[in-house]
């Protein structure tokens, strides 16, 4: 197992290098001269040249990349153009906000998705199954920026329901738990729907397997058959979806953070794109990509723990 984890860790290195090259190239893929953009339209050629020199833009790109990478390894992601503060500090301040939001959203999605999926599978073709699947279809189809706005409309500004919920998250998490609810529901609903559908499909496939009949032939009760024998097998494909969802939440929190005015990484990225603050964009994209790779690694490991058949090689 340790060997497996080490091998998987080593395998992520080429992926991370590839990601960093892509992120680095962002600077060059965007039309226009980065130095000119940083300096602004009205800047004198000397100023532009100074900035170019300062950023090392006169060096050949491979050399620039190596320098960029060596800085990253030392934890230096450059400085924000707008605020002048180190990008690492800017991200640090927002990082946990997004991770926390994604984490709660994942918990919600897993909790609701699993229960709904299991109920649907166990009572398949009954009205509860049909109802759950229709609701799941809605959950899946609603764009979350719209759903977020609707939630605000319904629960936060008192037009339909009393204004139970705050519209936005002004203070830090934990100061007011109510602030967490609407953003988490907005972000987690789509994931819950996907997990519910996945769990249902997976459970339906598993309960038709021979080993489920064997469990019944041993005299096991329906509860043991479903929750012990079937669920553990059915969870294997679901785990992948959960991991991908969590990774998706990290990147997809952009919209939710914007709607609820949450100072997370998503909003940081959007603001940086609007103000052409390239080092910040590079930094956030890099961090989110690394997180995604890491989450996938965790998925692989949990996969291996659940499914003994996956060979180490």
């Amino acid at each position, binding site marked *: 197992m340790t060997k497996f984890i080490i091998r998987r860790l080593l395998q992520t290195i080429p992926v991370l290098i590839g990601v960093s090259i892509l992120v680095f190239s962002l600077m060059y893929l965007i039309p226009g001269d980065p130095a000119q953009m940083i300096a602004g339209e009205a800047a004198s050629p000397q100023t532009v040249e100074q900035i170019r020199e300062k950023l090392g833009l006169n060096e050949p790109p491979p050399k620039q990349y190596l320098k960029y990478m060596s800085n990253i390894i030392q934890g230096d992601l450059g400085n924000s153009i707008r605020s002048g503060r180190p990008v690492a500090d800017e991200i640090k301040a927002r990082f946990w906000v997004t991770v926390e939001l994604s984490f709660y959203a994942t918990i919600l999605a897993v909790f609701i998705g699993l229960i709904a999926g299991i109920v649907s599978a166990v009572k398949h073709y009954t009205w509860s199954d049909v109802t759950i699947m229709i609701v799941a279809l809605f959950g899946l189809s609603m764009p979350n920026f719209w759903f977020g706005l609707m939630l605000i409309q319904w629960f936060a500004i008192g037009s339909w329901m009393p204004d139970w919920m705050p519209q936005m998250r002004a203070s830090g998490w934990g100061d007011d738990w109510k602030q967490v609810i609407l953003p988490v529901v907005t972000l987690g609903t789509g994931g819950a729907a996907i997990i519910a559908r996945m769990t249902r499909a997976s459970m339906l496939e598993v309960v038709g*397997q*021979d*080993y489920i*009949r*064997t*469990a*019944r*032939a*041993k*005299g*096991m*009760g329906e509860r043991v058959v479903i929750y012990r*024998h079937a669920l*553990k*097998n059915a969870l294997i494909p679901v785990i992948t979806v959960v991991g991908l969802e969590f990774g998706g939440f990290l990147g997809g929190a952009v919209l939710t953070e914007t709607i609820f005015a949450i100072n997370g990484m998503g909003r940081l990225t959007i603001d940086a794109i609007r103000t052409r603050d390239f080092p910040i964009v590079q930094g956030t994209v890099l961090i989110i990509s690394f997180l995604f790779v890491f989450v996938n690694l965790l998925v692989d490991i949990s996969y291996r723990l*659940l*499914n*003994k*058949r996956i060979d180490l090689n």
Partner: protein
Amino acid sequence: METDLLKVEDLRTSFYTDEGEVKAVDGVSFILPKGKTLGIVGESGSGKSITALSILNLLASNGKIVGGEINFKGKNLLSFSDKEMREIRGNAISMIFQEPMTSLNPVFTVGQQISESIIKHQKLSKKEANIRSIELLKLVGIPSPDKRVKQYPYELSGGMRQRVMIAIALACNPEMLIADEPTTALDVTIQAQILGLIRGLQTRFGMSVIMITHDLGVVAETCDFVAVMYAGQVVEYSDIFTLFEEPKHPYTIGLMNSLPRHDVEIEKLEPIRGNVPNPKEMPTGCRFSPRCPAATDLCRREMPELLKDDDGNDVRCWIYSEKWEGEAEVTVYGEKRIAKGHGSETILSD
């Protein structure tokens, strides 16, 4: 009748599909005496597996037992509640299945899967159950059982997995074992080992066995009694010697004729012409009549009853009834015989 462990009477099991009711088992009766082995033989789709699953009520959700009685030690299992049935399954009656590769749960160790039923039915602790699991693995002939008990099914071969299935089935010393084609998916050499193992354990523990198979060779080797099934019905039930020496039903005779034998020389094997009828479109009259070489208008018009003779052997064929006029000629293994009579005896001549 104290000696009869299991007595199935007029069992009827149907499946409800989009296209309507499918009568998979339609009036099956047989007796399994204590300590004996009953073979249930038939082609694919004859209802033999459904009969077995009906005994333990392990049918798929669209299947339902619609009639008959399954008397186990004098009690009708069909009157049992779900909870009472769970006490029977894996405890008094165990079952092993055709597909050892998929019948074990891939995410639990061999030990966990054997222990599970011991813990449930015999109320042993986890530790005691594990010790018992190792004993059982040893009993079914698995080498280094203390190592195997911690392994997962994917680490075992098909033959080994079937041995594990047998160990699970034997875990609570069942009075009756249902083996649903236990050797069909295995290599011939392994087949013989598994059959030998089941037979050995049967004599050792005095179990009764229902051996479901399509292989008359397996029947000849292991069974004391045989029920031949065709299209959801028992067409012949008799002791093993009578069945092989004097098969009565034209279907049984057809099966015999399509089987190579080392003690009889024959130029070529006779297959049974035609196919098993679709259960949704059963022929009227005798279900074998479209394929039967001896069929008459009577056969095509009316379904024969199961006729019993004095030795307890049954046959579902008009030839042996009083309604049959004249003589019927059958060929058993290249040897022509005249079959005629009703109930108790068959007149044979050449």
